[in-house]
């Protein structure tokens, strides 16, 4: 979704300096509303002068007299940045598939997740995928390194079988080093038996 479709927040950033007639324009910076709705901020420095941008559409003109804050808006951003924004790649998405204990078979629920992965791949002209296998903390490092790698390969092979080119998919295993749910060593935990797939 375009960030420009979001509403403009009510607060205006106060202009820090009056624009002097001779201040040569050296560019501008506009903070955009963030898709996730999280708080955002940007600090623009010119020499010793700084302006913080903390609200959507807070902006500065860069001038020979230093940064000069102003308030932009969706229309102005569209007028100046339409081509740059239209060229923005799709944001990467991440999926997680879960596995049966001690095996490289994924659970029934995760078989359905595979369809979502294929849809995300189909949306992208040049998809690249990183497939990362993990285990829970039952067993030795050596055992889990192999198992995590096998799980990643199972997912990679499932994607190749559905027509994804093999040079687009990198599969790696991280063993039991990165549990989602922290547990004691030796503990079985379904949420840690997973493969993460990043589609970019």
């Amino acid at each position, binding site marked *: 979704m375009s960030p420009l479709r979001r509403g403009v927040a009510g607060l205006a950033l106060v202009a820090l300096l009056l624009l002097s007639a001779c201040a040569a324009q050296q560019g501008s910076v506009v903070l955009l509303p963030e898709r996730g709705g999280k708080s*955002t901020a*940007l600090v623009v420095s010119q020499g010793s002068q700084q302006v913080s941008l903390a609200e959507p559409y807070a902006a500065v003109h860069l001038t020979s007299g230093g940064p000069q804050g102003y308030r932009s808006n969706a229309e102005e951003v569209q007028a100046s940045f339409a081509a740059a*924004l239209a*060229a923005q790649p799709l944001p990467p998405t991440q999926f997680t598939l879960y596995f049966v204990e001690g095996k490289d078979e994924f659970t029934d629920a995760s078989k359905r997740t595979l369809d979502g992965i294929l849809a995300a791949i189909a949306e992208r002209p*040049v998809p690249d995928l990183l497939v990362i296998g993990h285990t829970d903390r039952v067993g030795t490092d050596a055992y889990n390194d192999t198992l995590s790698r096998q799980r990643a390969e199972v997912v990679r092979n499932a994607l190749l079988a559905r027509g994804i080119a093999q040079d687009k998919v990198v599969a790696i295993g991280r063993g039991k080093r990165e549990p989602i749910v922290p547990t004691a060593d030796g503990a079985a935990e379904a949420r840690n038996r997973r493969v993460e797939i990043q589609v970019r």
Partner: protein
Amino acid sequence: MLAATLTALPALADVGQIKVAKGQVSVDRMGQSLPGQVGMPLQAADVLKTGPDGAVGITMRDNSLLSAGPNSILSLERFEFDPTTSAGRFDAQLQRGTLAIVTGRIAKQSPQSMTVRTPAAVLGVRGTEFVVAVP
């Protein structure tokens, strides 16, 4: 063992990839000008240039998205990223043109690890989406 696993993967040595290209796009690398095409892997120190009808969109390995409009010059000055910890360093410079940015895992992990420069200013990122223009 993890390091050995990672260095064996050529795809992880690239810093990013061109995902969108319109009109005239070129990449300056080690003194050569290469045509910028969709799917092209990018390296640290690459300089992307767009013509009067050009635009380019790239996805970096930390999931940062950068896209430049026409008549732009964008340098990927420095990019280091550890995919396990998300630690790294990303410095880019817009010398001319327009640029839209969605920051990625490097800025999320450590906001001061990403800066975007213009010839006149330095933008310190605090985890965000923004646009920059340089005449």
